[in-house]
């Protein structure tokens, strides 16, 4: 049953929950911004902006800790039940996942100084579009949390496929580039890691969406059928099993 948002008799409980929701919105906003800045730094070879992303990741880490502390405290003091309990557990997990998203953005930023020469590689042209969708997934997953919107959560889950498809295209293109330009292999590998980071960000946005769905309904989100990952040798085996 979806939370109707009726107030608790004990108003301080609502105030804790609202404070947590505000903090989740903030950590989400910061992570989304970190992705955008890291990608801008990459596109413009802006080392200063990249360093800023690395520095600001500390704020995301601190925010995660504050969310976890307040969640602990609220669970201990308010003994939440039903949708309140599910929401607090989801908050706790979402903060961890979003912090990881921030780490991926930081990881991309850290590669900026190394990959300044990669602009002549064709596959890099796909990265901005890929990162735009990955960022949107993060934003929409957190909007879904804020609005307890299960439809939007399911849509995030579906749209993650686009990010996966981007990754698969980039993977193939980078491998081709490596074969044709062996001297670029080092930088191309970094490029591949950046694409992989974006792909992981999409996956984590999906995790957030799944928790939003669970918190709102008490049920696990229906599974989507995943596309194959050419880099995962187990994928074929597993999908054969599923058949």
């Amino acid at each position, binding site marked *: *049953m979806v939370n*109707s948002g*009726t*107030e*608790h*008799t*004990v108003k301080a*409980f609502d105030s804790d929950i609202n404070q947590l929701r505000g903090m989740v919105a903030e950590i989400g906003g910061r992570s989304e911004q970190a992705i955008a800045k890291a990608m801008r730094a990459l596109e413009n070879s802006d080392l200063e902006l990249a360093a800023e992303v690395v520095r600001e990741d500390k704020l995301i880490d601190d925010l995660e800790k504050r969310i976890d502390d307040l969640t602990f405290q609220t669970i201990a003091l308010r*003994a*939440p*039940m*039903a*949708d*309140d*309990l*599910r929401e607090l557990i989801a908050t706790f997990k979402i903060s961890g996942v979003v912090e990881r998203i921030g780490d991926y953005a930081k990881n991309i930023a850290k590669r900026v100084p190394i990959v300044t020469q990669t602009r002549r590689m064709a596959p890099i042209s796909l990265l901005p579009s890929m990162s735009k969708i990955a960022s949107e997934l993060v934003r929409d997953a957190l909007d879904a949390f804020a609005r307890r919107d299960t439809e939007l959560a399911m849509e995030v889950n579906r749209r993650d496929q686009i990010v996966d498809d981007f990754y698969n295209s980039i993977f193939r293109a980078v491998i081709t580039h490596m074969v044709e330009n062996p001297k670029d292999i080092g930088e191309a590998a970094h490029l591949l890691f950046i694409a992989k980071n974006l792909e992981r960000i999409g996956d984590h946005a999906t995790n957030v969406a799944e928790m939003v769905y669970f918190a709102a309904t*008490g*049920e696990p989100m229906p599974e989507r059928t995943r596309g194959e990952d050419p880099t995962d040798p187990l994928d074929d085996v597993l999908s054969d099993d599923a058949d």
Partner: protein
Amino acid sequence: MNDDQKMQEPSESVYMTDPATTGATSEGGTPKMTARNVDVFYGDKQAINDVSIDVNMDSVTAFIGPSGCGKSTFLRCMNRMNDTIPIARVTGDITLEGDDIYAPQMDVVQLRARVGMVFQKPNPFPKSIYDNIAYGPRIHGLATGKEELDHIVESSLQRAGLWGEVKDRLQDSGTALSGGQQQRLCIARAIAVDPEVILMDEPCSALDPIATAKIEELIHELRGRYAIVIVTHNMQQAARVSQKTAFFHLGTLVEYGETTDIFTNPRKEKTRDYITGRYG
């Protein structure tokens, strides 16, 4: 039934109030007690409205709900305690092992031995600890001699977790014990007549947290040997001691199901509002 309605059907473990579809009836095994379409009136006022529920041996059942929701009234129907209230009228069927407990031939004294009750406030007789326990077995003629009676007293106190604390002072007055000990004495007294069902009406609300924990541990140990039904205002307690929970509101059974489901994912908005503290 069209497909849409099918989608709305609760999963197996979720029960609602219509016994035909809900699991207010038990899956497998014979329920110890069943209630069907029970109404209770105090004069013109209806206190219980069409309640159907099964109580099983293997689980502790908790009745929760706001004051005046009818949970205690319904509990008191289960061993005909409402008979003592002249204006109370009970309709519908309540059975114990298939026998209608409101049938004319039902011996109410015998029924209350089979369906024992423990009250909110400990109410030991103003007699010795020994006599508090021995009283029931004596009037029901359950013991043939002193030795057998001694044995019943000891084993009842053992099962109630009180033996170690009182074995050297069985002749002291039951009323001299602490509140928690008195309540365990009352549980021992109920056990002494070898009941099948034990009804507990807020058994811990007059006790401190340690005495409460002891009673809860006792409930846990007694589970399986007796069918136990507990009315409690303390939802954490219901969550801790029971396997099935029934939520009452305004005299109706709103939702009945596995305790874990009720407290993590209730199906009815009223249940959700009550257990999360949104009840206005």
